[in-house]
């Protein structure tokens, strides 16, 4: 950890020097994300990390559409007991739902819940693999949010605001901590299946400089948009063209002296390096057969493995959006299929990180925009029934990066419609993530609209000290 801090301080000094030596570029060019000068350069805020950081990188899974916590993590025997009976009035009266109307019935979970590992973390039979790393994960059963529609809730979960326009948590992270990779973007996004309703706003930089937005690694076509050379242009021809551009830019710099020109020259070189580093990153042929086998088949497996390769290469924030978990109907089949797709690769990722000694410094998060109701929606048959959106209680989990493994934090009431103990608001979750990265969420600010804006907004947010190692 000492090396990391020493290196980081050197980086800050360099940034400070650049700012003072004054090229006049200000934050725009200093926010050159892919060199090391990124970061909180504009607001005159303190340097980060300011708390001893646990995590250097984040791998953030967002389960788009919201999986049913009641069928995966949060067992409710009472709900099973009153399965398909009319719900008590306090569950729905005066509450707002997307679709439930009238007098809904309760829906018990048909799945068996099993205790795993030394810690006895409870998971449903839909997640058999995850049980193998149960002692690494911290399950938070007492999350709640303010929004019950996908778009606003996803925005709130990612930006702390229920409308568009604020930076995502990944952007805040790279703004605060910069990137350690010389050849890759600091913030990388994967999409799988139905993409989230709030779209690219979930990985955009809002009012932060746009260098902090997430770069999507695409599964089809070029992995990064416009990465590939035009057809018929050889590697050597491209090098020659770049040399000509650099020479002319250098010549112009010598006349004009604007340091922004130097930055431009550097960025063209970075673009050239990316044409090698990105294909190298996505090429999994060097991975051992055992590793490949452990992750399994399919797009999520490939993305999980690439996520590990990204954090190994110093990328700060990797986000994987995986959908669609929005089970208003036909929940049984949909949930089972989704779990099959993610269970093995995510488990393998945690085990792989652990084995490589990376888990301690990598925070892995499983999240969603909200949870699902204990009340049944639609057709009552086991195959066709579903659950509506629920904002008042849902489950997420975290692993690695300074989080206590094998811990279950918070609980919900007997029917699972409300938090019973240790409530965790979205901004508490954000504050905790920032803390693990060595950032005091109240100090990481950006001056916009005359205010020192921050991820956690103006209301109080608390770091969940109980879940820290």
């Amino acid at each position: 950890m000492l090396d990391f801090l020493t290196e980081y301080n050197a980086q800050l000094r360099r940034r400070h020097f650049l700012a003072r030596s004054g090229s006049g570029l200000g934050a725009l060019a200093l926010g050159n994300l892919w060199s090391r000068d990124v970061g909180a350069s504009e607001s005159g805020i303190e340097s980060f990390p300011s708390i001893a950081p646990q995590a250097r990188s984040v791998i953030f899974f967002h389960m788009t559409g919201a999986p049913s916590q009641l069928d995966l993590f949060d067992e409710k025997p009472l709900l099973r007991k009153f399965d398909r009976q009319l719900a008590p009035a306090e569950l729905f009266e005066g509450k707002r739902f997307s679709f439930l109307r009238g007098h809904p019935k309760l829906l018990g979970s048909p799945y068996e819940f099993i205790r795993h590992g030394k810690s006895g973390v409870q998971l449903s039979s839909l997640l058999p693999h995850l049980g193998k790393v149960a002692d690494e994960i911290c399950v938070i059963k007492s999350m709640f949010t303010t929004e019950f529609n996908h778009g606003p809730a996803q925005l709130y979960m990612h930006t702390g605001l229920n409308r568009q326009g604020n930076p995502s948590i990944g952007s805040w992270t790279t703004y605060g901590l910069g990137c350690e990779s010389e050849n890759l973007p600091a913030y990388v996004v994967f999409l799988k299946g139905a993409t989230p309703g709030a779209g690219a706003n979930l990985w955009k930089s809002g009012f932060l400089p746009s260098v902090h937005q997430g770069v999507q690694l695409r599964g089809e076509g070029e992995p990064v948009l416009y990465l590939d050379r035009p057809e018929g242009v050889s590697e050597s021809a491209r090098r020659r063209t770049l040399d000509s551009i650099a020479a002319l830019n250098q010549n112009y710099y010598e006349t004009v002296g604007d340091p922004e020109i130097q930055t431009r020259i550097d960025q063209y070189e970075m673009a050239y390096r990316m044409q090698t580093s990105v294909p190298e990153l996505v090429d999994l042929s060097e991975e051992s057969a055992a590793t490949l086998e452990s992750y399994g088949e399919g797009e999520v497996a490939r993305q999980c493995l690439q996520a590990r390769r990204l954090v190994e290469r110093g990328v700060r924030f990797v986000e994987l959006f995986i959908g669609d978990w929005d089970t208003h109907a036909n929940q049984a089949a949909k949930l089972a299929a989704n779990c099959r797709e993610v269970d093995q690769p995510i488990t393998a990722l945690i085990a792989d990180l652990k084995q490589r000694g990376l888990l301690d410094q990598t925070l892995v998060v499983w999240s969603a925009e909200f949870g699902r109701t204990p009340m049944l929606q639609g057709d009552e048959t086991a195959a066709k029934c579903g659950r509506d959106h629920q904002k008042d209680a849902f489950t997420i989990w975290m692993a690695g990066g300074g989080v206590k493994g094998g811990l279950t934090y918070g609980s919900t009431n007997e029917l699972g419609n409300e938090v019973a103990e240790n409530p965790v608001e979205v901004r508490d979750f954000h504050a905790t993530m920032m803390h693990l990265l060595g950032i005091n969420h109240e100090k990481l600010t950006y001056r916009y609209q005359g205010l020192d804006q921050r991820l956690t907004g103006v209301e109080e947010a608390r770091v969940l000290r109980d879940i820290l190692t």
Partner: protein
Amino acid sequence: MDHASCFFPLILGSLASASIAGELDFARDVAPIFEEHCYDCHGAETQKGGIGLATHYHSRHPAESGELLYVAGTAEASLLIRVITESDPEKRMPAKGAALNETQIATLRRWIDTGAKWPDDGWRPPVHWSYISPKKAALPEPFLSPPGNEVDSFIRDRLKREDLQPNPPASPAQLLRRVYLDVIGLPPSVAEVDQFLRNPSPAAYAAVVDDLLRSPRFGERWAVPWLDLARYADSEGYQRDSPRNMWPYRDWVITALNADMPFDQFTIEQLAGDLLPNPSESQLVATAFHRNSALNLEAGTDPIEDHYKQIVDRVNTTGTIWLGSTVACAQCHNHKYDPFTIKNYYELFAFFNNTPIESRQKGSEMGMSEMLHIGPTITLQKNEQDITDLATLTLQHEAALGIIRSTLRADAGRMMEKNPAALPEAVRKIIETKSEMSLAQCQAVARALKPANPAMGRKLEEASITAARLEALEKKEVRVQEEMQEIRPTFIAKRGDFLAPGEQVMPATPAVLHPFGDELPRNRLGLARWLVDPANPLVARAYVNRLWLELFGQGLVTTPEEFGSQGARPSHPELLDWLAVAFVEEDGWSLKKALRRLVLSSTYCQSIEVNPASAAVDPANQWLWRHPGHRLGAETIRDQGLALSGLLSERIYGTPARPFQPEGVWRNTAGASETYYIPSQGEDAYRRGVYTLWRRGSHYPSFANFDAPDRSACVVKRDRSNTPLQALTLLNDPVYVEMATAFGQRIEKEGGNTVEQRIEWAFRTTLARSPVEAERLLLHSAFETVLVELNSATAAYREIATILLNLHETITRS
């Protein structure tokens, strides 16, 4: 004008005029020190130790120790002076941050000694500079006219005080390119450069500027920053992000700017055109301005809640544009720093709250079906261009349908032969009927045949997208504002929660600003007139500051979205106010006149070279000793490339264009009605960027790479990043590759008879100036290398084109 009494704020940390001469002014000289250094602990919200400085009242209240903060006339004995001059840093104030400098201490001493006067004795908070009406100061410096004007007087005065020299003028060729790109967003041709070089006099330059201001390209260029403010887009936003028909509004903006509609009228028509007597069609279209708010059509949305969010967006956007103020804070609580209360916020809200709900659930209540837009629209007269578009698109659609029909018939025929029972009765009937299948029938047949032809799914989806576009074009609707007959009551939403209504409020404007005239109606029209009342201290300042930002890359107030006490103080306050007053009084709210003044200034015309001596004093170029030479905007970079390569379409107005973008980009948006991006054919692929389809969930990727906002919310200031993605875009985006190829061909064909001539022509076409010897040699050697290697002059000229399109100078103002 009496210089001493004019508005002349003190710049913190600089030599204070106040301590040297003239009478102290509380708002100008004293309040800024309190704001900057004391308010965190002794402001309106908190009064540590019982000490407050936000209001006269608080400042006179004894501290917890019982001592008074100051006694007028006796600075040395006053607690305030004691704590700021304390030698022990532990005890010194401010507790956080550096000690006050000598100038500031002297100012406070003098303020107490001369009576510790507050702006009034009514115990009200001190007034922040931007809430006081701007006044024209006397010009501090003489200026040469032409080429200079009043702008230079203020800039030169400041440079002199900072001991800085302004740069010499830019070369005529570079100046011409700069002013073309700024005024019309397109580069000058070699012929236009040559003509100017024959007589590059100030008069000839002014004549060029006047020509450019008359060009229809002007409106296309200047619509872009306004459309960022107006958050104009062609999709709804949020989950569904489905297409919406708003482009007639975009065309209204271009038309209004070309006609130089005065900004007061421009404001009134957009905010309240529908409330004008006998509004014209154009005045109704203008009201689409506030219908640009995002609309959540995700299934299960509460239409009333979404309506509340839309009005919040309208209030915030209005505050940002016309008051230069972030009123948004007051949505949930009293503004912590500025005199806006939550009540003020909902009183503004009440002006906008009287429009109909804009969405409803489709079908039954229990259904999972989508939401529909039901807000007010008007149907517009189709013009010739619309009719042509309609005909072209119909032809394309019919051709696509023809292929679909014949493929389906063939596939179904094979199926009938093999296994007729596999096809449902209804489908067999469709096929057996001779008449042409409708799109719906094609879809039914394809469903029955599904495993047979997977490519058909894509074709059908594209056909249905085109069908929807045809329907939209046929209808030619645009969303407008409409006032309801019955007033919808407005309540303060406690903590910003619309489900927690508090006190009912009526439409009103914040008391800290100019009064709302008795003659004005308490509706959007009255509000619009109030906003452009010349007594509004903010509107013209915010406007000219945004204009300055466009031309100089940074506003005179560097927080153009915030003129309140938390915003930056102006770098040149007298200039800002002079420009604001001139904009209203001399220019009559004319953008063209205000813009003309700025581009004719010597400050604008100076060169961009970095003079090391000046850079050592003012590295950020805050005092404008050089033209900043900042990067061009996303649309201008593409427009310029299209112009250089001869591909640019000159077609003005009309439905959104869909230039080529890679496959799969639109998958970013889920639950939306359009998954596939169908690129425009022919000329439409090469229209100016202002016409490019703007989808909020996934806007045009090369624009996004050059910092164009997605237009989900009002944006005053675009970022100006410098990233490898920009390099990748210019090098590899097929659109730019095509431009390079076409530009290469142009160079070969139009550039002259020799390689030297052609390289010279290509360079001058791109950058207006002639290459220097080193540049000539570099390009020539690049040409020779490719020529030898590929034995193709065409390839070698394409290489020259690629290099030129990628230069830093090409994508910046030179």
